[in-house]
């Protein structure tokens, strides 16, 4: 019995580690994307990855570590809040850019490089 618990214990922390690392990877990828991608909309896309995948995985990992405690409930609430707000924020920003008549970059990067559009809706 105790060995089963121990295995579960190890598995829990192992899984938490995987989630945290995965979350970290998405955050990093998002950050690189914001810096490297060519135009406003694609950068926004990269930033969205940080918000959704990155934070969700990190929160899941933390919840696994915290176990069945009040802390987990709070983390779940944080997750819920982010789940609702970050796509909305991304939507609002993209909407504003669209309203401001910011054209997305079409075609390949090399073709339109000259007209590189520094992101910014205003």
């Amino acid at each position, binding site marked *: 019995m105790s060995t089963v618990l121990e295995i579960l214990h190890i598995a829990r922390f192992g899984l938490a580690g995987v989630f945290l690392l995965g979350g970290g990877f998405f955050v990093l990828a998002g950050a690189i994307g914001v810096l490297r991608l060519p135009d406003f909309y694609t950068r926004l896309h990269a930033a969205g990855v940080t918000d959704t995948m990155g934070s969700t995985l990190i929160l899941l990992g933390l919840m696994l570590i915290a176990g069945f405690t009040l802390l987990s409930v709070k983390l779940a609430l944080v997750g819920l*809040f982010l789940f609702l*707000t970050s796509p909305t924020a991304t939507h*609002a920003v993209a*909407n*504003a850019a669209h*309203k401001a008549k910011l054209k997305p970059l079409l075609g390949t990067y090399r073709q339109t490089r000259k007209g590189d559009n520094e992101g910014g809706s*205003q």
Partner: protein
Amino acid sequence: MNADFITPLDAFTIIDLILMLMLLIVGLAIVRLNDIFAIVMLAGVYSLVSALWFVSLDAVDVAFTEAAVGAGISTVLMLGAMLLSSRTALPAKPVRKWASFFIVLATGAALMYAVTDMPSFGDPLSAPNAYVGLEYLKRSLPDTEIPNVVSSVLASYRGYDTLGETSVILTAGLGVMLILGMGGKINGQLKKKAIDYDNADAQAHHTVLRVVSKMMIPLIVLYGFYVQFHGDFGPGGGFQAGVIIASAVILYALIFGVDAAKAAVPPLVVRIGAALGVLIYGGTGIAGLILGSNYLDYNVLDPHSAPHGQELGIMSIEIGVLITVCSVMLVIFYGFTSRQPDITDKDW
């Protein structure tokens, strides 16, 4: 100064170093930039990173407030004020730059001079940490039955400072009222209607925002009350709660228009609230006087148990703080929006 103590180099210190590095970069960026919009956003970032650093330095209450006030409300106000002004600052003249540089150098040198006699970072026996602060930690529970020592010091031991602080906020609200007014007039002309609700296009573009904010606003207010009443046990209290609840109304105003927000929370109510909070706070102090003790003495509020009296008093003044802070934040917001054209679809 305690010469025996040596600050350890551990994981905590490394986080510390990274955050400080970020602060330095953001600070230098603000110096270099001339784009006002970027400067304002970076100022918000600076506050947010500071808040993170405060968490790592165990100052959870301060971090909370800095994030809500410094990174939140301040940035909103800054954006509101710069909305119509030019977006770029004129670069400073070299003479001025050098003059400022030397003033700053002299000031910095005076502080650097003092560094050698400062206590080591983290020293538990340094003068600031081993004296009154420790005394508070030991007395807070028996004296006031409040585990969050920051709350008990803020509201009781140094409660008079907090009365002053609440009055500072009120004064600022009064100042904005006097300088900007709270009416709906811009230069004597009646303001145009905020948002055209019949406009199908506007409706379509705001659907997501409206739905989500409708879900969020009650939760934000609820969270504000949680922060208010949980302030005795965890980080939080009247200031943070006031700012959070005010931010719910501000969010409502941003999405549904300032007029709708003013219909829901009328300016008169807000003005009364601003004054009422300070009066509740000051009145709690007067109650101590009437019950035959000193000003702001909560012990006498409950004749049977002094700690319970403390709890009562602290709850009462925290409610006063909540009302004033929340109201003044809205006074300021209404004041600014009455001077600006409403945020229109074009700005989204």
